[in-house]
């Protein structure tokens, strides 16, 4: 038995609400976090920070944002990238136009701006439902990129229409090295993930799920539908906005509005489908999957299949694999990797017995 549960009883409702009721699980989480904060910065190299860990963290956060809206509140959206763009461009402008604006505050303000835009495009959700709502989010997707390209003010009249990360300095510490950018991203994502976890397990989270599962019944028991939906849009867009700012500032450094196009929205949707809708952990698993699979395939081919398989065909293959996996998960395990992980853990609890 890997887990020993005997002797651990919950005695208060507060303790019963914990995500990890066993001390082993809590301990594992703290160890993981400690490792990520204190050890990884010293053992990682540029490649790991810049090409794997930072995009993984940022995409996890974006997945988290969309998951609130789609996985918890049941409102499907194809406009995630637009809200990321709003966050990125807003954070850039706050940083640029207000002298001495602290970096973290500009992230938060970027998030708030995205939240406001999210609420505007969420307003139609009261009257229209399901696929029809796609129209609203797609309108957001196309309209936001159009505005950001059309009006030079947003990119400070840059001739190439791009925005560039400001110096990443917080309280005198420079975070612009790869390890620094990683730590900054990790810190922001960790804090937001904890807050989000609190929200989904609180009253608001229950409202979202109620609206998702049956909105008529939710209205009947007194849940204010519009407020609940709009809060879902707002908080989801807030997280996406911060993810966008991180994407621009800590990951790429320079971005154009085109970097937040429809295919990015799809990518984020795939993260939550593969990772697991209505799960916090799922976003991290899904993002890891979507970041690692292409790298894995391309490395394997570069090292073993070089000259055997045309690299172009390999990319086609990868596309097919992605599509097939999405369908596979939808058919076999709609709750995604998060559910598989849970099953694995339950096996570990009773191991070596089978049941």
């Amino acid at each position, binding site marked *: 038995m890997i887990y020993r549960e005997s002797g651990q009883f919950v005695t208060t409702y507060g303790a019963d609400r914990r995500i990890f009721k066993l001390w082993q699980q809590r301990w594992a989480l703290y160890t993981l976090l400690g490792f990520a904060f204190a050890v990884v910065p010293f053992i990682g190299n*540029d490649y790991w920070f810049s090409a794997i860990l930072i995009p993984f963290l940022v995409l996890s956060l974006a997945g988290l944002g969309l998951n609130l809206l789609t996985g918890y509140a049941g409102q499907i959206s194809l406009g995630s990238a637009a809200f990321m763009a709003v966050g990125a461009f807003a954070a850039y402008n706050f940083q640029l136009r207000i002298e001495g604006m602290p970096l973290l505050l500009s992230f938060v303000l970027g998030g708030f701006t995205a939240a406001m835009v999210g609420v505007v495009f969420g307003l139609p959700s009261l009257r229209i439902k399901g696929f029809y709502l796609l129209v609203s989010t797609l309108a957001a997707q196309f309209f936001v990129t159009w505005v950001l390209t059309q009006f030079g003010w947003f990119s400070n009249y840059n*001739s190439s229409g791009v925005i560039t990360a400001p110096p990443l300095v917080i309280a005198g510490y420079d975070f612009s090295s790869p390890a620094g950018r990683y730590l900054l991203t990790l810190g922001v994502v960790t804090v937001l993930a904890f807050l989000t976890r609190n929200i989904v397990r609180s009253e608001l989270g229950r409202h979202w799920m109620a609206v998702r599962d049956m909105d008529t019944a939710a209205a009947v028991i007194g849940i204010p539908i519009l407020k609940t939906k709009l809060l879902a849009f707002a908080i989801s867009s807030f997280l996406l906005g911060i993810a966008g700012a991180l994407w621009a500032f800590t990951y790429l450094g320079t971005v154009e509005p085109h970097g937040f196009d429809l295919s990015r929205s799809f990518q984020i949707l795939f993260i939550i489908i593969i990772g697991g809708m209505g799960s916090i952990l799922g976003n991290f698993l899904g993002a890891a999957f979507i970041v*690692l699979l292409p790298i894995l395939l391309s490395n394997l081919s570069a090292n073993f299949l070089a000259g055997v398989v045309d690299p172009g065909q390999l990319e086609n293959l990868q596309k097919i694999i992605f599509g097939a996996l999405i369908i596979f998960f939808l058919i076999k395990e709609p709750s995604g990797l998060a559910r*598989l992980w849970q*099953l694995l853990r339950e096996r570990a609890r009773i191991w070596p017995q089978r049941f």
Partner: protein
Amino acid sequence: MLSIIKKPSALIGAIALGLGFLGGVAQAANEQYFPLQSYRVGPYAAGGTGFFGGFIDYLQYVNLKEGGVNGVKFTWSECETEYVVEKGVECYERLKKGLNGAPAAATNPLSVGIAYATLDRSAADKLPLITINHGRTDSTDGSVFPYVFPLQLNPYSEVSAIINYIGDKSGGLDKLKGKKIVTLFHGSPYGKETNPILELLAKKYGFQLTLIEVPHPGNEQQSQWLNIRRIKPDWVILRGWGVMNPVALKTAQKTGFPADHIIGNIWSNSEEDAAPAGAAAKGFISITTHPSGTNFPVLQDIDKTVIKAGKGNLQDLKRLGTVYYNLGVVNGILNVEAVRVAQARFGKRPLTGEEVRWGFENIKLDDAKLRQLGAYGLVQPLKLSCSDHEGGGAVRFQQWDGKQWKVISDWVQADRKLLRPIIEESSHKYAKEKGITPRDCSKES
């Protein structure tokens, strides 16, 4: 459903194998390495296969013909980006360290998005970023962007040269007064980039300019061309991208606008832009920094030493001499010359990125040198410096005869003096945002 995780050890093994090859073993190889962020699939695959095919063939050619530069052979490896920014970044980070001890010379992504995303990294890693014929206009100012090289032609020079050509056709720049010119541009930062310059030129020469946007991807242009028909312009400048180009030509035909009064820019000038429009493309004019075809000694030599020997990179040999292939060859020539120049100063050995950067800044290709390279007429005379990372700023004009491009002009020079202050204004703004102190170019040797 648990079956996919039944063998966790196998999965972990696969991951370790997949990710394990990141470091690379250091050996003292006498080779210079080019990391290639190529793209051979996806929407822009046609451009990628041509460009990287030409680039690789030229490197191979130098290896076979001369045994590399001063005995230092070239080596390269490809990493597929699919024109996707994150993949480009991942490839950059994976390949920047060099290969088996051979240091990386420069990166050549041929993608605006990837170039932007690796711009900061290039400076931090001291690895030149070559954005031939494209990229940030203000990176022309090498004092602010020491590691970025928009070689030959930046976007501003493009339009300036086109206007000069139109002036030429009209019998002098003073004859431009009162002419009507429409610019049809792709609805993206790239498409909009040159609008202020066009406006400036319109004011200067007194022609009537109308800017019309085509939203991405541009597969529907009915309203734009009806508008053009109403304006009845003398010339249409097409600043297109991808599918927008053939659709523009087809719609022009549909609305009765003659193709030989449409001038395509640098991303509207390939076979892939004209051919899908079929007969509608006949007569279409575009700029190019290099003629297509194989009528140059260097290309014939590549055909002989590399391709005929079965060592070519192209799968489809028909693409030899196409616009993208030749661009790849030109790009190869410029990269190799930079290495050659740098070796002359730093020694006949594999060079670091920083040393190659110096080489780029000191490239000087005059007619004699170009003849020696077998590239006279293919590459324009080019002289780079610390403050000028573009160098040339000239284009030739070509016309589509229904099957291929025919060059119809000599080199037409952009008005670079006019553009320089605007470029500097932009680069200084960037320097201020980023807290960069520009280099003092008078002190560079």
